[in-house]
């Protein structure tokens, strides 16, 4: 009985570690890929209204841009070089506009 429990527990642990990791691992990488593009769309969607955002909102967007840039810099895969080049420039444009709007408001 004791051996059986130990065997069952070890088997369950093995199954969890092997399959669980595969499923969660794959899911999270796919999810992460979508996630950064969604974050990009979300963070840059406000550029048209940058001048009416509050300094706190602008700082928050700048912070989100910085985190996104770090994520993009870590991209891997076949198209990573192109994606890095394209999205780094795009996100930097958003970030710099928010920074510009923030400095404008601070000068005011």
């Amino acid at each position, binding site marked *: 009985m004791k051996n059986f429990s130990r065997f069952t527990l070890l088997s369950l642990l093995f199954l969890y570690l092997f399959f669980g990791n595969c499923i969660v691992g794959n899911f999270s990488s796919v999810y992460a890929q979508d996630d950064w593009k969604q974050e*990009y*769309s979300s963070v*840059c*969607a*406000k*550029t*048209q*209204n*940058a*001048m*009416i955002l509050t300094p706190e909102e602008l700082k928050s967007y700048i912070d989100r841009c910085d985190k996104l840039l770090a994520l993009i810099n870590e991209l891997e895969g076949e*198209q990573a*070089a*192109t*994606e890095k*080049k*394209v999205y780094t*420039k*795009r996100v930097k*444009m*958003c970030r*710099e*506009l928010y*920074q*510009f709007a923030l*400095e*404008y408001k601070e*000068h005011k």
Partner: protein
Amino acid sequence: MAPIQKLLSAFIIALTVPVSASAADYSHYLRHIPPAENFGQVVLDNYSHKAGVLPVTFDHWLHRAKFTCRLCHIDIGFAMKAEMTEISAADNMSGYYCGACHDGKRVFDGRNIFGSCAENYTEDEGKRCARCHSSAEAEERKYDYKSFSEKLPKLPGNLIDWEKAESEGKVKLTDFLEGVSYKREPLKAQDDFTIKIRSWDVIFSHRKHTVWNGCELCHPMIFPSTKRGTTKYSMFQIMMKGEYCGVCHTSVAFSVWLCAKCHITLVE
């Protein structure tokens, strides 16, 4: 502004503003404007020659008639200076830059947009390369300025009047590309303002500029100052170095040599 630049600016103005000519008479300035078919032409050769093909000759007027500046320079990500984007065939094949539209699948105005680059192609398909990798006069290009711009309103120098063309409904510009553009909130344009320059004031319209460009195309890259009036720039920088207003107005937007388009007091 450096004294030498001040001097050169004054010299340019003295050369370009004839005392006897009325301000809106552009005949004196036209010699400075390149032929309309070459205005805004960009030659891209980061990798072409090395790959054994001709450089890409890009005509702004052809694309400008269909898309907003923002779509290409923000959403797709083309840099504002020639060759700064460093587009490679691999980028295009991955669906970026030229390949964002020129993927052989996307349909525009009921027509398939031809694919840009390919790793393997037949001899016949290879002819397609010459639609971009060729001189502006090449037969494969399919478009020529004269017939393309025939029905569009013109400015002096035979340049297309884009503003009028749009207001008359002769061009309808696409501003959103599915799978490329991100959804933006509606634009709240900033106020127009006057730039005092001796007696030749410029009225700058934020509305006219943002409708095609958005905000981040100009700020802070082209106009970095956050306090109005603190950045001093000269006509030398604009006209000769292609800086500030000259980034667009020496390439695709109406020419800087059409002085009275901006310096409204010249007209009055």
